[in-house]
């Protein structure tokens, strides 16, 4: 699109709205995004060549962009089959297929490299009472599929707090300055969560699951991260499961503030520190998440997400599969993520951050 002497490009904001921006405006946002990442994460900003590459992607006049041949990566997916049979709350389309059927569609129709079985109520706690049903489902899937199959669920420590669970809620204690009570509740809940996650994961190992995917880890903060790391350590030492840990956000919230794993405080960790904890626990794949700001442009968000993820990938010794989904990894926060920005985020992550997968 042209307006006088200044070329304006069709692009988007972090909430998915279409906007027009000039080349200089996009360039400025890319620079600002990478500087913000460098400042918050205490990492190196993207180089000028890398920023130029993102500018090239963002100003390309195509709906879809793709990686160069030979640079393709492995795809893992969380929730996955729920996108077909689930309701709006799962970003699902309500297509009436079973999980077994949906996974076959993903393997053969959509050509994903891996898939997972997950309960519609996609957290570990609801699975515990019905674990034989989940075992039966994953066994059935493993008989007929060829691609690796994970069992996936969220640690979701918040389900262990009042009113959903038996422990006091830190969100109730903290506004009343009841710090000791808030910390105790988190530690007690984390211990029960850890036991549940180990129990369920070992049940999946019994029936031959290829792996376990811990999704949105640390959504409730550092206590949840600790419970997950301890679970990973136990599973890595006692089962043949492949273990993936996907994070909830770029920053581990210090809801407790003083919890440590192997001598390192977990609160405040960014992806390049998170991955070292996950490696130390024994996991096989790490999925960093960088949150999208709906107030900023896609150029800003993608540059920022790539900078933080690149820093993680540079220090990792295990495969890194960045979360590039709705509201993370530079993708707009929108119920129907726009394909133009999804593919731009996808390509930028692969070509600059040198990921092992998405």
């Amino acid at each position, binding site marked *: 699109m042209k307006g006088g002497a200044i070329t304006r490009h069709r692009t988007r904001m972090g909430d998915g709205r279409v906007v027009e921006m000039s080349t200089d405006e996009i360039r400025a946002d890319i620079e600002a995004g990478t500087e913000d990442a460098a400042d918050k994460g205490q990492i190196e900003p993207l180089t000028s060549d890398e920023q130029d590459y993102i500018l090239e992607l963002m100003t390309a006049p195509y709906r*879809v962009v793709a990686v160069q041949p030979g640079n393709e990566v492995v*795809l893992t997916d969380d929730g996955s089959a729920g996108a077909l049979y689930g309701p709006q709350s799962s970003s699902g389309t309500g297509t009436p297929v079973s999980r077994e059927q949906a996974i076959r569609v993903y393997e053969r129709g959509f050509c994903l490299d891996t898939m997972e079985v997950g309960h519609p109520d996609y957290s570990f706690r609801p699975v515990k009472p019905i674990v034989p049903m989940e075992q039966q489902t994953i066994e059935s899937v493993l008989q007929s599929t060829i691609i*690796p199959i994970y069992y996936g669920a969220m640690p979701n420590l918040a389900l262990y707090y009042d009113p959903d669970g038996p422990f006091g809620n830190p969100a109730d204690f903290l506004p009343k300055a009841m710090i000791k009570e808030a910390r105790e509740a988190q530690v007690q809940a984390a211990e029960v969560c850890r036991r549940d996650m180990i129990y369920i994961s070992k049940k999946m190992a019994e029936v*031959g*699951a290829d792996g376990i995917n811990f999704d949105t880890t640390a959504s409730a903060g550092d206590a949840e991260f600790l419970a997950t790391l301890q679970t990973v350590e136990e599973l890595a030492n006692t089962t043949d499961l492949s273990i993936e840990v996907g994070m909830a956000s770029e920053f581990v919230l210090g809801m407790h503030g003083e919890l440590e794993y192997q001598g390192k405080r977990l609160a405040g960790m960014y992806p390049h520190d998170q991955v070292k904890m996950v490696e130390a626990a024994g996991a096989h794949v790490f999925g960093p998440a960088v949150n999208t700001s709906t107030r900023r442009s896609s150029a800003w968000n993608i540059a920022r997400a790539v900078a933080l993820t690149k820093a993680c990938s540079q220090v990792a010794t295990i495969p890194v599969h960045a979360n590039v989904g709705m509201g993370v990894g530079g993708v707009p926060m929108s119920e129907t993520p726009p394909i133009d920005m999804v*593919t731009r985020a996808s390509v930028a992550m*692969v070509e600059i951050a040198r990921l092992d997968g998405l």
Partner: protein
Amino acid sequence: MPVAHALASGMGGIRTAGDLVARMQLHRKMRLPQAKEYVAEKLGVGLDQLADEVSMRELREDLDIGVITAVPGAAKGLAAKSRIAKLLDIEIASVERLKEKMR
């Protein structure tokens, strides 16, 4: 959205060698370049062929490790995975569980 990623950046699963490269990441913690090199060597192909659906379709049928289209008599499910395990020199849990049942 997974479809958008699959088109933009994905290896292509059993349409190509995507599942094989994935297994080396999952089972042996290999980073992508190492995983691709390992699989390419086991398959006897160049790196540029791993995501090429035309050459991989033919090779997968020759090796009988599962193909994307529904070919009667071609290895599927556990049969394909047992051949993949042997080809890549890895253990696949569901295949090992089957072996235990067969003893």
